[in-house]
């Protein structure tokens, strides 16, 4: 339905920059997630797309049309907020039907038909006459979703929609959102600070930090090949070692990390100071080319596995082991192929 493009979007408030030149393209029908720590600019980006904020520089385009000066009500977007923002003085059905006061329902439906259809879509059949404050948190969020979708918007914008819900509810609602999005094939921009959620739900993810986009890519790529140390640390657990390239060979390199040497398979060309990233799952006991003696500090039982925090060479290490280690000292190792190396900025 709609491609979304952001080109050089910057936003400054009283001189302090909230966004510093965002370039993004969201493809038609894509589920695209903005993820990052709080204050990284992800919500500001979403609000700029919705038209609640106007960029200081750059432009937002829907299907190539510049949106400069177009107010939110004329952008055909559906927005869902963390706080639900249901209208407390209207019933559930009135909430869902509100957008249909301004746009006709699609496919020649009547307003009532459309409202009923959407309540069914979010599994809230028969709740139309209730007041929002009679609903649970998860139900309210589904009403908010149905309300945003009712006028059949070109673009669905979700701003941390699950943050206020408990973990279990979050997962089931997440699946429901994904199912609905796929069924409608609606271009969706999703904002969250939860990287696991971002990886689980998205077609593509943009990791943001300090008003910039650090990396854009499919979840697997983001996870396996983080482009920066920030992404490596933010997305999933990771062990990171700062070091200096000592020797480059054809398919291997040696990195000096605080006096110890690690062998890795590939380093970014031209980089001298690099960061070596190794996922906890890639570190196994007593195997691999690189051997690291680790001092165990704490262990967390996670069911299938145990997460162990320890220290090697002064660097904090996270391990994922099948059982609780019996000794305070243990040795783990990894092969050069298991390491991902990024240039240190």
């Amino acid at each position, binding site marked *: 339905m709609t491609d979304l493009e952001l080109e050089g979007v910057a936003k400054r408030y009283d001189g302090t920059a909230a966004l510093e030149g965002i370039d993004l393209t969201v493809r038609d029908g894509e589920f695209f997630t903005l993820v990052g720590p709080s204050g990284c600019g992800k919500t500001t980006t979403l609000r700029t797309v*919705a*038209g*609640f904020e106007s960029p200081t520089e750059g432009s937002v385009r829907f299907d190539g049309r510049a949106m400069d000066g177009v*107010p*939110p*009500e*004329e*952008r055909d*977007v*559906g*927005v869902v*907020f*963390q*706080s639900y*923002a249901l*209208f*407390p*003085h209207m019933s559930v059905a009135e909430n869902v039907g*509100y*957008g249909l*006061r*301004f*746009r006709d329902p699609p496919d020649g439906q009547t307003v009532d038909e459309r409202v009923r259809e959407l309540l069914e879509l979010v599994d809230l059949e028969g709740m139309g006459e209730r007041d929002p404050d009679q609903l649970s948190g998860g139900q309210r969020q589904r009403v*908010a979703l149905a*309300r*945003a979708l*009712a*006028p059949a*918007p070109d673009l669905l*914008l979700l701003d941390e929609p699950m943050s206020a819900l408990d973990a279990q509810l979050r997962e089931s609602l997440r699946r429901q959102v994904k199912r609905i999005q796929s069924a409608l094939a609606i271009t969706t921009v999703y904002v969250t600070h939860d990287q696991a959620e971002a990886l689980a739900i998205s077609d593509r993810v943009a990791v943001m930090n300090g008003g910039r986009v650090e990396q854009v890519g499919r979840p697997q790529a983001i996870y396996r090949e983080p482009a920066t140390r920030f992404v490596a640390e933010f997305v999933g657990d990771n062990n990171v070692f700062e070091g200096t390239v000592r020797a480059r060979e054809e398919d291997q390199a040696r990195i000096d990390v605080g006096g110890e040497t690690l062998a890795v398979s590939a380093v970014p060309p031209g980089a001298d100071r690099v960061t070596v990233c190794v996922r906890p799952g890639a570190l196994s006991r007593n195997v691999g080319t690189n051997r690291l003696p680790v001092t165990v500090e704490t262990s967390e039982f996670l069911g299938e596995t145990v997460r162990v925090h320890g220290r090697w060479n002064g660097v904090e290490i996270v391990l994922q082991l099948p059982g609780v280690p019996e000794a305070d000292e243990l040795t783990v190792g990894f092969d050069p192929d298991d390491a991902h190396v990024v240039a240190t900025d």
Partner: protein
Amino acid sequence: MPASDRRGLRNAVVTLRSRLERHALSLAALATAAVLAIMLYLPVGVVFVEAVLEAGRPTLAHFRSVLTDPFYVGALADVFAEPLAVGSHLEGVAGWLGAVSVSATVVRPIPGLELPVPWLALETPGVRLGLFGFTAYQAALSTLASVALGLPAAYVLATYEFRGRRTIRSLTILPFVLPGIMVAVGFYAMFGRGGTLNGLLGLVGLGPYPFIEGNPLAIVIVAHAFYNAPLVARVTVAAWESVDRRAVETARSLGASPRRAFRDVVVPQLFPAVLTGALLTFIFTFMTFPIVLALGGLQLATVEVWIYDRVRQLAYGEAATLAVLETLLSLGLTYAYLRYESAQSGLARSAGTPARRPLVPDLRTALSPRRLAIVAYGLVVLVVFVGPMASLIVGSVTDGSGLTLRHYAFLLERQLEGASYQTLPWIAIRNSLLFGVATLAVAVPMGVVISVVTARAGRAGAIVDALAMLPLAVSGVVFGIGLLRGLVFGIPLPGGWRFQVTGAVAIVAAHAVAAYPFVTRNVSPLLANLDPAMVESARALGASRYRALRDVELPLVASGIVAGAAFAFAISIGEFSSTVILAGGGDTYTMPVAVERYLGRRSGPAIAMGTVLLFVTAASFVVVDRVGGRFER
């Protein structure tokens, strides 16, 4: 008409409407700005500019002469005269402080009557307060008295259910609309040596007591409380009713006693409202005019009295200087308050109205200390509020020979046989009601627009908001003279033209200007507490800013709007000075103007008209509150 044409027409209408709606808010803001520019800034500016002009040249001479005159500023005159002589001023202050003593004592304000009243005795070594100092002093005392008398009323109205509660709540507005002269006459009729109260006390062999003469300052303060305690009560009741019951319940579940829950949960939520009431009371009583001289006498003259006298002598420079100082003081206080208020936003206010308890559930409870205290307070209300009004009504049906209807007969006869150049009662009633409704219709959008503009604007918003309170902070006398010079006489334009604004439309606009701050003050705090995502959701769904306001925000702040609308109506009904000026010789006079015009050497007809004013207003307010109640959730 073919279907396609019809659709085309419909589309055109929809487009036009949506285009209008898109700009509705900016248009309303523009219109508000235009009304304020013409009806407020122009007239006030015309007078204020005199403060810095001397024979057409800019000067600070007026300020210098006022600020260095001990008559106006008391002991501060030396400081203004020699601002740099810090050392000697500090010595003066230190010497003075050394001689101050404060003690809590009990005074018996009424000679001959053992009625002990706790009083904070301030022993000061005769520092000269000056006109400004005394004015502030009596305003501070009046504010304390108004809060002290208003809060119990708010407590009773918000927490107890009893027959007539709603009606009493509606009627709390009544003192607000009474012309000053009627209040004075009512107070004499109630508290005078030969008044109702002494008459009643005489029945049980007490008195007569010189309630008024015994302590004129006290009676002026009580009269100020008569006007303003209902204001404090109204504002506080509104806040009390929007205290979230769940918060109280949470506190109770956490182990707080009812008293503790009240102190920790309810009080902090009421405090801003109480402060609003106190602030408005201080500003009003700082600019008090007819009441002080009518009840207290010339010794208790305030700044406004002097402004009036200067204006009467056409000494505009001095009058404007005094008025500017008065206004700066009020606006400064308002700004300080607004900074405080914005720091409080985040206080959740929601509709979880606390359940009201019956006032008199059974005889045993009725005799509990708390119920008895309420009864005692009820007696105070009877004496202070009901007494003067009831005495006024009695005065309208009596003369030297006892009961009579001749004053009402005069009103009837004047209505039936009066000439067009005379003041006819029905026209006054009709105009008052029409102007009241029209004022409400203009002031509510104005107030709401200003609330919307300032609600989320941070510090700049607080400044704009404080400036928006200008109508409350400008001396009534100065506003009146500004209207006369700026609008009635008109502003000369090149080519012999004049820009003039008079008549009914101008009266309504002037009333709306005086009234909209009440709407803003009632609406702004509620609006600031709404989730901004609510408006944004609506807009993303296709609503223009105006529609989002209409569909979402306004219904959610309806209680504030209704409260503001009621005040707007009351301000319009009670307004006197600008009405009189803008009415000119036409038939646009209102009830308070009629009261004034019927005042001659016989006060009966005027008192009868004042009584009509009371009843018409009371009836309207019961209606306003009932109709308004439907919009509240």
